[in-house]
């Protein structure tokens, strides 16, 4: 009887429609620029990446991780078995029982999804996502009933045509969401796009506990530099946008969003999806960019993004703190996308806002953002008796001073660090006036041409000398030297050189006993993790070890470690200065004050400047080297 076959036919039809949708979706991604990816290896590695890396992130929310394992695992298993039982009609009860088990597992999971959706937190998107648990339950229940005869629990043909009709509707609803929706842009798209995204991720180094945070260099000879239109992204970046589950974890962590600046990482990724598929954001059902209405944005793969899809202020609000990337369970690269679009604005349109153009011009003309005379770079060290590489040629430790050399506040940090190194008898030298800006600000502001030029010239200078380590007090320069210069280091100027942040280096000195320190006697101390030290380079422990070595018990802030909140000073944000409702630095200082600390220890001159810019009364702000130097026991010779 045909009617008996109806559910099976529906399964096959929806499966086929789903596959067609998926192929169409894939063709949308292929509108992006080519990028070499090892397809086979990626697909092979995908399950491992899913089970290990992705779940490592999801695991931070135990409720959701268990729910997802039950629902997702149950679905994949039952889908396979559904095909076996209901399409290929394998008549073995054991398989049917296995299917029932899988469906029950999924049903339990779906129930917990349903429960979460009863009163969803603000970060979650609503709209079609509210329907998902119901579709999941419909799917599970429908197939449980449909499988009961195969499992021998109910006799074949129970319920007659009426039940089959009801079940067919159930199949349409359930599979319509889960298979058809997967291919045609429903919430379940995340499973299909997400799986492929994991397989073809642009930064495969991130899997297996690795870290890949350096920005990718842009091709300066291409017809359009940077990303103007959605189709200017690499194809696997587009794929990555499609993987978004709209969980809003990024939005909850984004400092710009919290400060009321017009940026919401989740909305940004969804706008990219609108851009790659064409259309408007009218169906977006999550939080908007603060201060901007939803429904106005429209775009398509070949339209300029900033001409209607995303406003420029949104792109310039980002501090590149990477909190969103760190938090994203789908491992989407928000910061890469933002900087790619900034590159177009800066290098093609010349529209870096506010002080941006002035700073870039200064960097080009003087190799430092302040426009100071390059010959005055070493003035701060006039009384420091520091040897210069030009004279020494060979040294153990090269101290990369960074542009803090021009800032009177940062010079205090530099002096403190020099004093510590002298106390530990470190064989150290600086580049002196030969040093240039690392290019961090230029790169984050989208001027990759200037960054590349600085990187090449700095590398040429470094290549003339021999040293074992580079140490710097500036996490931004540290990040550039350690993670981004390698792309331009053709002559191996940094090959075999250990790049260290000063806290790491000082920690080594303290551990080895080269530095003798007194116990700290001040009040409560908290530690602020600089983004470019923590999230970008994974150094969370050395600064804490140092503080502990002074006998300090750190009063941790609620957002610390990999969840540390940005000070607002990264990514050129203080330069582009997009107005919000409040300042990020003020929010961070509130975090610090909430611990009751009297002193905020910091490992970055930019963070120091930002946090000290908060109006008093507030805790004191000191770089770790400044705290250490106060406790230094100087040996009298």
């Amino acid at each position, binding site marked *: 009887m045909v009617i008996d076959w109806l559910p099976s036919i529906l399964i096959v039809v929806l499966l086929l429609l789903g596959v067609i949708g998926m192929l169409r979706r894939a063709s949308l991604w292929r509108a992006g620029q080519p990028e070499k990816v090892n397809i086979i290896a990626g697909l092979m590695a995908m399950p491992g990446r899913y089970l290990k890396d992705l779940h490592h992130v999801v695991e931070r929310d135990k409720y959701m991780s268990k729910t997802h394992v039950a629902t997702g695992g149950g679905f994949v298993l039952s889908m396979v078995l559904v095909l076996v039982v209901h399409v290929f009609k394998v008549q073995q009860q054991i398989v049917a029982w296995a299917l029932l088990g899988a469906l029950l597992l999924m049903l339990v999971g779906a129930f917990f999804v349903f429960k979460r959706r009863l009163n969803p937190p603000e970060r979650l998107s609503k709209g079609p996502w509210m329907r998902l648990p119901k579709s999941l339950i419909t799917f599970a229940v429908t197939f449980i009933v449909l499988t009961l005869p195969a499992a021998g629990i109910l006799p074949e043909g129970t319920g007659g045509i009426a039940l089959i009709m009801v079940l067919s509707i159930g199949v349409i609803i359930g599979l319509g969401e889960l298979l058809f929706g997967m291919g045609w842009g429903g919430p379940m798209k995340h499973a299909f796009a997400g799986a492929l995204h994991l397989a073809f991720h642009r930064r495969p180094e991130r899997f297996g506990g690795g870290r890949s945070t350096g920005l990718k260099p842009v091709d300066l000879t291409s017809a359009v530099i940077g990303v103007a239109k959605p189709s200017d992204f690499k194809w696997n970046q587009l794929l990555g946008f499609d993987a978004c589950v709209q969980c809003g974890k990024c939005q909850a962590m984004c400092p710009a969003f919290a400060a009321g600046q017009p940026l919401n990482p989740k909305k940004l990724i969804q706008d990219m999806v609108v851009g790659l598929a064409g259309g408007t954001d009218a169906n977006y059902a999550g939080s908007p960019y603060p201060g901007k209405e939803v429904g106005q944005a429209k775009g398509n793969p070949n339209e300029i993004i900033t001409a209607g899809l995303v406003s420029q202020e949104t792109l310039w609000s980002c501090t590149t703190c990477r909190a969103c990337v760190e938090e994203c369970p789908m491992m989407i690269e928000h910061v890469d996308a933002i900087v790619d679009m900034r590159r177009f604005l800066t290098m093609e349109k010349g529209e870096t806002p*506010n002080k941006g153009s002035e700073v870039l011009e200064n960097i080009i003309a003087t190799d430092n953002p*302040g426009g100071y005379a390059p010959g005055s770079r070493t003035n701060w060290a006039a009384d420091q008796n520091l040897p210069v590489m030009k004279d020494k040629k060979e040294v153990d430790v090269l101290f990369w001073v960074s542009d803090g050399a021009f800032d*009177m506040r940062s010079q205090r940090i530099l002096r403190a660090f020099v004093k510590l190194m002298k106390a530990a008898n470190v064989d150290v030298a600086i580049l002196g006036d030969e040093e240039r800006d690392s290019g961090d600000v230029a790169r984050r502001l989208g001027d990759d041409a200037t960054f590349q030029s600085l990187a090449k010239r700095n590398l040429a200078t470094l290549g003339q000398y021999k040293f074992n380590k580079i140490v710097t007090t500036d996490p931004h320069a540290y990040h550039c030297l350690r993670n981004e210069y390698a792309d331009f280091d053709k002559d191996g100027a940094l090959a075999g050189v250990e790049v260290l942040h000063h806290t790491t280096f000082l920690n080594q000195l303290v551990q080895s006993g080269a530095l003798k320190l007194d116990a700290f006697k001040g009040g409560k101390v908290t530690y602020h993790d600089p983004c470019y030290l923590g999230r970008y380079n994974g150094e969370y422990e050395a600064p804490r070890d140092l503080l502990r070595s002074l006998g300090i018990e750190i009063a941790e802030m609620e957002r610390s470690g990999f969840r540390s909140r940005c000070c607002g000073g990264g990514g050129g944000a203080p330069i582009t200065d997009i*107005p919000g409702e409040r*300042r990020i630095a003020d929010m961070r200082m509130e975090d610090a004050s909430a611990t009751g600390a009297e002193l905020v220890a910091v490992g970055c001159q930019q963070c120091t400047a930002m946090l000290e*810019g908060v109006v008093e009364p507030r805790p004191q702000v000191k770089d770790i080297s400044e705290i250490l130097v106060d406790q230094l026991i100087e040996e009298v010779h």
Partner: protein
Amino acid sequence: MSDIIRRDPRAEWIMRNRLHPLHEQYASQEEGGEVRGPSGLIRKFPHKVGFIGPNGIKRIDRLKGNATAPKGKRSAAAQEVQLPLHKVDSPDYYIMVVADMVGGRLTGHDKDILGLAHKLIAEQGGNGAVVAVCFGEVKEEHFDTAGVDRVLHIEGEAFEGYAPEARVQALAKVEAQYTVKHWLFPDSIHGGCDLASRLAARLGERPATQAWQVNAEQTVSRGASASLDITRQTPKILMLLEECADAIDETRHEATPMSLDDVSVAAATIKDKGLMAVDPNAIPMAEAEFILSAGNGIHNWDQFHEAAQVLGATEGASRVAVDDGFMPRSRQVGATGTWVTARVYVAVGISGAIQHMQGIGQVDKVVAINTDAGCDMVKRAALSVIGDSEEILAELMKLVAEHKQTSLSDQAEENSNAA
């Protein structure tokens, strides 16, 4: 009480014993270093007299600060003493100094150049005379002591206001009528540079610009945005920087009027439509000469804006005031904002973060209004008043309003006198 002056042995003992706990107290009672001696006579205590001079050497002012009073009289008398008159009869050549005459009076820059003109004549020898060429309204009364041998005042409606074309035609006629050895102009933004360049182009002479070391043979001038010293033969037309020579101050000069025969000029292609009223707040901060700047200590913003308007000052702000949204970002003064060059900078409620101090590094006079006497801005300021800014600004506005009233009536008086 008896009139007998009695010794107080205890007080004397304390005065002698510098370690006595009351010594300071007794010593400070002896005002002006005067001590009652053992015989009852008043004696000077030499260790307490005088003060430490600028060179670290102790000085005793026996006039007790009265030295200035008689000095005024004396210098008044000295002015009556006539400076020697420098006379030039029928000169062989002239050195023309085309003065800026800002506001109708010689500027310091003009006077330096007049001094240089005399230096050139002294070096070159011969019977040369220094001529001040001026256009438009002239209010200067002391041409004689500024070193002007002859005054060539070119008058006429065509030369009033902004009339570079008419003026350069007149100068070309001067060149034709007189034997001119050098044309000296101030290299200034008050028109001297413009006029000089026009004349040089007209006469086909190659001028020296931004000249700062000039003698009869050689001129050193700046080039390449003041990064280069160019040494060359002294040309006929020179545009001179400030302080290129010392002004004349020891001689008196004739300042005899000269005249230009033909003052007719062709119709101008550039027409002056007058000065524009400029809102002080529209002046770019980096250029403004008087800035009233607000910081965290301001609570009454309406009053602050009103004060800026009454004083005619350009508004500035500290970073905090900008961050809090009270002032636009373009008003921020400091390392990350604008570096200002104002002559007077009034910082209201700004404690002076290091970045802010960097931004006002080039300011001449800083006035601080603050509640905290220990803040960095007070240390930097030439004048600091400690107190509530609202009250002080209100008083200040009152004073300025009164002043404007009186100066307006003064002006009216002057005008009626002139009429």
